[in-house]
């Protein structure tokens, strides 16, 4: 192997990129985070991918390509997170490799991190081999530290994000919370690599946001977001759907976050699966991979938690999500909860997207009103 200095690049996942960045920095590497998804990266990715390949694949290919292109004098380890599951997710990295090589790039290798898969006697050693390939040889405590700090940063960023979307529909001056939030993300990103420091910054920033003038209220329409993880978790992929909904005066909640996703997949996998099968009984009785089962389960759970509507965000043609979409039509009827399925691809335009969101929000609002009126008329009759 060449002794060139290695630079890492990782998929960008919403604001949590700051955490991944710290991870590699603690290990002593350079790291370049791809730019947020934009028309340029999408164009690159789309033109080099097979036509019906997943949209997330195209986005990522485009992002990586731009990183390699802009830094021809560096040697990259491209980190690909994937699973060996029934989804195409499991075959992303061989395709990146082949396509990027076919395009003439040589300044990279791909490190794919996948979960442990059967047979276990092969899977477990393979997993650790990959892990070593990812981090290189380091003192174990350095690696542990990198994980802990990155984990804390992810957590902190998610807390800030939650707070942001809670406050936007309640703030007195439109846009004021977002300003504080943006500064907070930067602070977390550059926070010293100490858990205490991260905690302190988090608390300070949460307080700042809390102190921004706003009116607490709990009568806003509530919308839950379900769908495919990468579209859902990265704001630049979903055209900032959460923020848009928040500015439309909606209490919005996203079902998948890096923290719960990782917990459910890696640590609590078994109980998570059992829980899904139980909730989905009669709708989807089988493991289908991707996030399709989660989409159905979370729609049902949102209804039970009193939400007024659910939006399913999925990449166009996504295998498990299209299956889920068809089943969701039935769930929506049985549980009486409106579900809007939005498919994202390179043609999704801002304007049409906003119109559809607005129409859905209007519909939810008028449904709420109708329910209120009904309630009132019932009490009057009594």
């Amino acid at each position, binding site marked *: 192997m060449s002794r060139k200095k290695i630079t890492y690049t990782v998929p960008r996942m919403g604001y949590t990129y700051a955490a991944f960045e710290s991870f590699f920095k603690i290990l002593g590497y350079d790291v370049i985070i791809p730019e947020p998804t934009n028309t340029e990266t999408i164009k690159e990715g789309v033109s080099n991918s097979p036509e019906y390949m997943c949209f997330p694949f195209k986005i990522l290919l485009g992002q990586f390509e731009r990183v390699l292109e802009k830094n021809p004098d560096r040697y990259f380890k491209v980190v690909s997170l994937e699973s060996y599951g*029934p989804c195409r997710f499991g075959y992303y990295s061989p395709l990146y490799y*082949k396509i990027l090589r076919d395009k003439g790039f040589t300044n990279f290798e791909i490190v794919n991190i996948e979960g442990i898969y059967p047979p276990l006697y092969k899977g477990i050693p393979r997993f650790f081999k990959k892990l070593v390939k990812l981090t290189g040889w380091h003192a174990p405590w350095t690696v542990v530290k990198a994980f802990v700090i990155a984990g804390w940063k992810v957590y902190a960023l998610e807390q800030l994000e939650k707070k942001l979307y809670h406050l936007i529909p309640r703030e007195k001056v439109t846009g004021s919370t977002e300003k504080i939030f943006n500064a907070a993300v930067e602070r977390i990103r550059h926070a010293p690599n100490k858990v205490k420091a991260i905690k302190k910054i988090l608390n300070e920033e949460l307080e700042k946001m809390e102190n921004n003038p706003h009116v607490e209220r709990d009568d806003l329409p509530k919308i839950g977001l379900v769908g495919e993880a990468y579209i859902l978790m990265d704001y630049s992929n979903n055209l900032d759907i959460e923020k848009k909904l928040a500015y439309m005066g909606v209490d919005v909640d996203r079902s998948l976050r890096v923290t719960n996703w990782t917990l459910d997949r890696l640590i609590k996998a078994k109980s998570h699966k059992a829980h899904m099968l139980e909730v989905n009984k009669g709708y989807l009785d089988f493991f289908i991979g991707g996030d399709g089962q989660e989409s159905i389960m979370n729609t049902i759970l949102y209804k039970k938690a009193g939400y007024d509507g659910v939006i399913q965000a999925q990449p166009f043609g996504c295998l498990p999500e299209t299956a889920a*979409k068809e089943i969701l039509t039935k769930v929506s009827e049985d549980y009486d909860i409106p579900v809007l399925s939005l498919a994202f691809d390179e043609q999704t335009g801002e304007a049409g997207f906003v119109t559809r969101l607005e129409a859905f929000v209007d519909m939810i609002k008028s449904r709420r009103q109708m329910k209120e009126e009904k309630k009132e008329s019932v009490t009057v009759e009594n």
Partner: protein
Amino acid sequence: MKIGIPRALYFYVYYPMWYGFFSSLGHEMKLSIPTNKEIINLGVSHSVDDICISVKVFHGHVKYLLNKDVDFVFVPRIASEEKYKYTCPKLAALPDLMKSAFVSDAGRILTATFYTRQGDKPIIEAFEEIGRQLGDPEEKVKRATKEGIKYQNLATKALRSGHTFLDIVKNIKNLEELIKRPVEKKRYTVALAGFPYDVYDTFTNGDVISKLEDSGVGIVTTDMLDPKVYKHYSKYMIKDLFWYQANAAAKGGMYYIDSPDIDGIISISSFNCGISSIYQKLLDLYSKEIGKPVMHIIVDEQTGDAGLATRIEAFIDLIRVKRGDGLVSQENNLHGTENGVHVRSV
């Protein structure tokens, strides 16, 4: 009892097994008619629009059968066709999809979860489940399961000896005889790579098989191959795909690309199928290295017959040129169409 069998998706892999099982139990089987315009329309109107055409067509076949006087429509869940490998999420969710699409008939969907090519045990369990739902005595179900497995093994033998699955369906009662029947070797042979349901649904794919055969070209398909022969292509692929059928199409396709007696490869896949886009890319990259023509046909609601015929003729001409035979001459151009003339002038 009368059991409807949709002529779509895994019908084109496991029909012999269903046939052996149900006929041994003495149930009457009703096959849906081969896909036609009506079936496609039925399917399109009962499914969500961004789902792949193969699954849409399946909706059509199920609806067609539900409209007839059958007691059950058989929608097996083929969960896995190889150890540690699963099927496409839409196939794994197939019975659930059908129950959602045809809510009032959900009780008429007969289903069980099958794990195939992993020994007889999981198959026996799945058939036991079906036997219970139909209320058949255990002993009979056991015997019927054996019959099913026997038919499936015969069909595999027939495939390995070069007969297409369509021949198998036609000769389901005389598989033993079919196995012995030799397959005529033609001057040119084209390999069809793809999922069996895309390769064999003659309506949706514009009848590629007959078009080739009419032009005097012999065909082989990827499901004729024993997976053992293409195992080593895993290395080229870096990592195996997660679906048995996709591996078969990819590796089988590469195997045919490398076979000296195969003149060209046509891959057939379904519009909006994300899985085939992967193996198509692999075949493209691989054939680029080897230098054998590969053509892709992507099936949609209206695979144009005219356009397709032109493309196939151009492909045949390409093969002829590669063999040094020159272009199709007017006399033996069986179609003798203007398209043929047009191709010649290229």
